[in-house]
Structures are given as structure tokens and as C-alpha cells.
């Protein structure tokens, strides 16, 4: 059974899937900042719902798609190393962005590994002075205190992307920037990459 035969046999299905994909790409470009956040949150809950049945790899695949389509990973990786970005070679920048992205996916897959009825709810949004948007949401945990999640959004081309997440007043971007710039200045680029790789391996082994 050749690939060509499969295509001929199911060509209408392929065309349908393709048109849906094209539509979804166009739709993604028209998504508001709020839509981008809620889609990301829904996908996160979906990965959590899979829990141990999905396993680390299964959750990783789901959150990778969710994060890639909602976060501006290159920009975040650039901000967390601060002024030292300018001192890195192009190959180092590529390596940093790659490992940083993997670490984000691994972290989500590791820590969002179970579901106990949690939900996200939209609260409000506000515009910033230079055209950014902050989307305020609540993470509701049954029989527990809510956690405030604020998403800092920036336009990237035609779509909105998450630049920072602030959980109960603690800024992820600011915290990471302090950590990464500290490690870079104290131990250097190799050590930073080494530490990131250690964490990636650790997260995948423990889950």
C-alpha cells in the first residue's frame, strides 16, 4: 500500500484537514490577547488531566505545542540573560534559546502532572503605555486559595504572545533574569547551559 494510494483514497479527508489547519492559522492571527491566554490555559489543563496516564513524554508533547503557540520564547530567552545577550555568539544564542525552550516544556511537563479539578477564570485586562496588554486571571483550586495569574502580552507580527507570567505578585521573567544573569556572570555560559541540561534530564527522570 503506497503513500500515493493512501492520499488518493483519503484525499478529501486530507483536504478537509488542510483547510481546517489553514483556517486555524488565520484564526490564530486574529486571536485577542485574552484568547491566546485562555487557549494556553485550556491546553495546560488538558495536559494536567492526562496526568500519569500520559506520562512525562505525553505531557511534554502537549505543553510544547501549547507553549510554542502562546509564548514568545526567543524574546523571553533574550531578556533573561540581560545585557550579556550582546556578548554571545550566534551559535551560543541558538543553543541558549533551544535549551531554554526545552527547560520550559520540561518544567511544565514535570510540575503540571496531575489534575484535581483546577480551573482558570478570566478576571480583566488592561493596556500598558507602549501597547502591551496585561490579562488578569485566577487559578482556582478546589478547597484551596485561588492563585492570581497575570499574563504580560506583546504583539509579535499579527498575534499576541506571552512575555511574562506573574503568579501572586512574583514575576517569572524577573526571577529568571536574576538567576540567569547571576549564573552567567559568576560561572559563565557553559555552566549555565550545563545547569539547564541537568534540570531537563532531572525533570524527565523523576516524572
Amino acid at each position, binding site marked *: 500500500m503506497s503513500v500515493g494510494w493512501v492520499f488518493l483514497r483519503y484525499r478529501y479527508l486530507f483536504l478537509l484537514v488542510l483547510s481546517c489547519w489553514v483556517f486555524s492559522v488565520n484564526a490564530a492571527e486574529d486571536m485577542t490577547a485574552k484568547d491566546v491566554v485562555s487557549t494556553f490555559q485550556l491546553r495546560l489543563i488538558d495536559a494536567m488531566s492526562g496526568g500519569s496516564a500520559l506520562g512525562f513524554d505525553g505531557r511534554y508533547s502537549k505543553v510544547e505545542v501549547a507553549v510554542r503557540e502562546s509564548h514568545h520564547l526567543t*524574546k523571553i530567552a533574550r531578556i533573561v540573560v*540581560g545585557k550579556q545577550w550582546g556578548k554571545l555568539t550566534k551559535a551560543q544564542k541558538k543553543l541558549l534559546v533551544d535549551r531554554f525552550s526545552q527547560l520550559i516544556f520540561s518544567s511544565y511537563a514535570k*510540575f503540571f502532572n496531575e489534575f484535581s479539578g483546577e480551573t482558570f477564570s478570566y478576571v480583566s485586562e488592561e493596556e500598558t503605555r507602549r501597547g502591551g496588554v*496585561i490579562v488578569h486571571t485566577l487559578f482556582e483550586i478546589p478547597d484551596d486559595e485561588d492563585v492570581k495569574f497575570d499574563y504580560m502580552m506583546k504583539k509579535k507580527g499579527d498575534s499576541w504572545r506571552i512575555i511574562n507570567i506573574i503568579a501572586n*505578585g*512574583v*514575576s517569572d521573567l*524577573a526571577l529568571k533574569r*536574576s*538567576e540567569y544573569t547571576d549564573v552567567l556572570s559568576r560561572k559563565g555560559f557553559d555552566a549555565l547551559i550545563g545547569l539547564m541540561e541537568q534540570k531537563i534530564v532531572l525533570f524527565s527522570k523523576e516524572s
Partner: protein
Amino acid sequence: MYDLNGRQWWVIGRAFVVLFCFFVVGCATTEKKVAVEDPYEDFNRRVYTFNQGIDDYISQPIVMVYDTVTPDLLQQGVGNFFTNLNNVQVVINDLLQGKIKQGTKDTGRFAINSTLGVFGLFDVAKHVGLKQNTEDFGQTLGVWGVPAGPYLVLPFLGPSTLFQGVPGATVDVLSNPVSYATALPLVQVLSAVNARSEAEESLDFIDKSALDPYTFTREAYMQWRQHLITDGQGAAQASFDELEGEIFSEESEDLELDALESELNVSVEKAQELVFSTERAEFADDDSEVDRALDLLEVELKNSATEGLAILEKNNQEEDANRIDELVDVPSPVNLDQELLVSP
């Protein structure tokens, strides 16, 4: 063994655990943030390591035994008991900060849990909509406009600040009923063990996820304290303002990032395409095609790994060369020529 009580650590940890993962501190009144002051970093790091040692070899084993022998329900009761006693301090600071309405509610919370909740063992108040608030004298100082001052790590007590944390903790100890239970040392020991036990999840999270646990703890502590002082008002906007210059950078930088992203996406797409071709060959039941596709994928992955290793190797060589240059003052060829000319 931390200036933050177990509940505060728990809330911080919970926020991070659900976030996975999380610059600066500001003045409560202006919401304008300033850089974290850590002039005693070397000393702080030494104390941090000392505290870690105490925690690893003394606190953690004790907590492990406590968690093993104490049923969950009893642990929850013990936690509720100390949280309820802490409400005396919460109400005092509500009033000192002028939060009269909140102070009334917190007084009601304390009264309900002390009576209907059997000396605070059961948190009845939460079922009538009275949530637990976190207030301490360090926050009150912040609300009054006293700056945090330099960051400090105190032996046995952990993260603090010179102008808010140290005086705040002193007044908090004096306003906590547990401090006066000198005739009942067991109560004080239980209070410390309970606080450490409640912080377990968060401390474990920091250990596992932080690239640099000291910096992570410092930043999380300073941001969290600021959040408490401002009651979370304007935190997101202030954070955006602080990072604005970097978020909305020069157009040339955005172009550079887009180009970098495109190159990385090409690598990802190439790997994905190779995976798809493997799957297609498997679907076609063509073993030779499967082998060929797997070989290509292996080569691609090796190339990717080699590229990464080459960068690391190059950096190591550059670092070694720099170290040698520093150790051996090698005369440049020009200097050598001059030396030869001068020599008889």
C-alpha cells in the same frame, strides 16, 4: 527556620508549583521598583549554605519523623492552631496599617476559630467566607514608607531585610502568644516543626527547579514581600514598566530574534519531517526505507549534538587560552623584536 512562616512559604511555593516554575523591589506608595540591594551577598551566601546544612542534617530528619508519625488530620489541626494564634499579630498589624474593615473581619475569624473551632484546631471561619490574611510588622513598616534596605540571610532564620525584616520579626515574636508559652517548651518546638513541615513542598521545589537556589530564594522573597506590602495592587503594571525597555526593544533586535527563531524552527521542522518519513515508511511496510529514514534522523540528531558540543568545546578552549594568557605574560612579536634590538 525561616523568617517567613510555613504558611507564607506554602503560598509562595504553591504559586510557583502551579506556575512551574518566577528584579526588584519598590516602594509601596509609588509602586516604582528599584533594584534589589544585596551588598552582603558573599556573607549571605555563606549563611545560606550554613542554613542549608542545618536544614539537611537537623530540620529535615525531624520533619520526616513528624510527618511519618503524625496523621494528616492531626497535622492539619496543629497547623490551624498556630495559624489561629498568629491572627493576634494579624489583627494588630491590620489596625497599625489602618485596615479597620479587614481588622474587624480578622478579629471575627480569630473569635470563631478559637471558640467554635475548638481553640483554633478547626478552621470554621473559612466556611463563613472569612479568609486568612497575612499581615506582619515588616509589612506595616513597608506601608509606613520604611524602605526594605539590604537583603540579609540570618543564621537559622533565613531570608530577611535590614530595615523591614529584622525589626519586623522582633515585633512579631513579641506579639505572638506562642512566644510567651515559656512554661510549655513543647508548644514552641511544635510550632517550629509545623512551620518547617508546611514549607517542605516549597523548599523541595526550589531545590529541584532553581538554577541558583540562593538567587531564586532572594528574588522570590523580595517580590513576595513587595506583593504583601502593596496587597498586590499594581504589581503587574509595575513589573511591565520595569521590563518595558527590554520587552519593547529596538526593531533591529526584534529582527535578529525573528531570524534566530526561523533558523531554529527550520531545525525542528527538519527533524519532524524525518520522523514523519520514518512513520510513512513504517506505514508502507518498507524496512529498507525505515532504516534509511532512521539513519538520516540519527545523522541530523548527531549534527545537532555536535554543533552544541563544538560550541562548548570552543568556549572551553577560549577560557583556557585566557587563563594561560593571564598566567604567562608572553611578549608579543613586536616586543620581542624591540628586546632583540636593545639586547647587545
